[in-house]
């Protein structure tokens, strides 16, 4: 294992020290491993918190700031945070209008956020609504699985719901917007390499040099199938086709096309992929009105990419375009 760390045990807390040092707009509670906006919550604004295992940066801490999250709870690498963290964050960001929890659909995340919401209700009376993202079409969604995983749509949801909260909308309205984003978004990823969790010290899975894992999860969960490495055009089709088969993206007000890097793939390759994705979408009669290209929800140093499509309506588009100022996303300010 070759990593720029001090010790595997301190990687999360050391990174939080760096985030605090680098970003004056943020405040870090190092004891509870929570990243907040430095400014106190604006009275009457719905609070937005998220969180999850570390190792997916900039998600979630890099999306704390104006127009997105109010707080992000950092768990150990690839391990969900504990309820105490979300309870504390909920109390701190509540400004009288309630708090939205943005939760990726993994059993640990869902259970720990659920317990936090129960504790918040019992201890503080703060109104909490949770919205769970489950956009990964690689997983069969049935009664016989934990359901689809929350991946790329989480980034888009945090941006759009954050904008709705910033406008002063109610908790019910912000939650409705968030659910609409999740319902209209789909994703699929591919890994070219595994990744190494610092505490484990060795790659999570073995993947031969000439093979790819199609449908991989952001913790190195197995995908749909393992295939020989192929040109980007072919791989883009492998990712886009299952997404289009799952939801009709034609019509409406167009889509956001999001090509995400999993951590170890350079931007030049992501743009190669974006071109191929855009070409397939155009041929399929789908209008791309906004794009996002870069590493936004990663899996440590895993090489690979994911594609997320979000079907827009005029309100979602307006909220997507609203000003945002976070370490990970910034425009209009």
């Amino acid at each position: 294992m070759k990593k720029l760390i001090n010790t595997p045990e301190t990687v999360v807390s050391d990174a939080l020290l760096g985030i605090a040092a680098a970003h004056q707009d943020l405040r870090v509670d190092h004891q509870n491993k929570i990243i907040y906006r430095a400014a106190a919550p604006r009275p009457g604004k719905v609070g937005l918190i998220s969180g999850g295992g570390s190792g997916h940066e900039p998600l979630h801490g890099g999306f704390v700031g104006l127009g997105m999250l109010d707080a992000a709870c950092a768990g150990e690498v690839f391990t969900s945070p504990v309820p105490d963290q979300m309870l504390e964050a909920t109390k701190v960001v509540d400004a009288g209008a309630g708090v939205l929890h943005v939760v990726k659909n993994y059993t640990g995340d869902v259970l720990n956020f659920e317990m936090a919401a129960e504790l918040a209700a019992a201890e503080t009376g703060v109104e909490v609504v949770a919205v769970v993202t489950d956009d990964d079409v690689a997983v069969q969604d049935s009664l016989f699985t934990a359901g689809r995983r929350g991946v790329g749509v989480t980034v888009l949801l945090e941006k759009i719901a954050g904008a709705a909260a910033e406008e002063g909308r109610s908790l019910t309205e912000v939650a409705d917007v968030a659910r609409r984003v999740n319902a209209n978004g789909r994703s699929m990823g591919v890994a070219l390499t595994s990744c190494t969790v610092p505490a484990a010290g060795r790659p999570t899975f073995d993947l031969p040099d000439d093979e790819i894992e199609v449908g991989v999860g952001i913790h190195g969960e197995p995908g749909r199938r393992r295939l020989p490495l192929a040109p980007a055009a072919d791989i883009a089709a492998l990712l886009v086709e299952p997404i289009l088969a799952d939801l009709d993206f034609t019509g409406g007000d167009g889509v956001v096309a999001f090509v995400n890097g999993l951590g170890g793939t350079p931007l030049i390759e992501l743009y190669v992929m974006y071109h191929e994705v855009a070409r397939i979408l155009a041929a399929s009669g789908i209008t791309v009105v906004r794009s996002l290209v870069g590493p936004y929800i990663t899996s440590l140093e895993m090489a690979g990419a994911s594609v997320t499509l979000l079907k827009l309506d005029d309100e979602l588009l307006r909220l997507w375009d609203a000003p945002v100022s976070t370490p990970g996303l910034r425009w209009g300010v």
Partner: protein
Amino acid sequence: MSVGAIDAEALGRWVRAFAAEVSRHKEVLTQLDSAIGDADHGANMDRGMAAAVAAIDLESPAGPRAVLTTVGLTLVSAVGGASGPLYGTLFLRMGAAVGEAEVLDGPGFSRALEAGLAGVVARGKAEPGDKTMYDALAPACAALAAAFAEGVDLDDALAAAVGAADAGRDATIPMLARKGRASYLGERSIGHQDPGATSIALLVRTAALTLGTGSGLGGAGARVCVEDAGTLA
């Protein structure tokens, strides 16, 4: 302590014994979890149970309810992942079920464990055969309740629960996972023993050794999993 009278001290011994067994077998638990999960069950449970023992040492909780509640709250706060809320809820619901009792008899402990199981089901939505901790815990609860209904003494009732938990654990091997991260594997989860059911079997066995005399268990030590030749003292 007289046999059949389960007080705070006995429950404390159970918690310590379970913590010691989790620590001793954490590599095996993690190994089972790396096959079908995310390779952290041993480390997470070890961290959580060590914290639970430390909390009991620090707070010296008085009464069964306080012991069980302290353990539950500590597990929720220290473990993370799915095991934290599930094991935490198991102990919290047991604590709530024992009420203000200073001493539990066997059937009282059995009812508390049933309440804990109900909490795990409510939290995790597991059903029989999903390949989870439920598949070892539910048979153990049922065996315990059935034994007391027949008027069996505490040692023999706990021994029956151990047998049922071990059988339930082994029965997870051919199951297709339907809950948690293992469910993403689909058919590939078949043939692997569930790590949560494995730690539950340790929990039930240590209960027999600490809440009773363990005399009903016979001389043979326990196998933790197929790959593991280890025995329990």
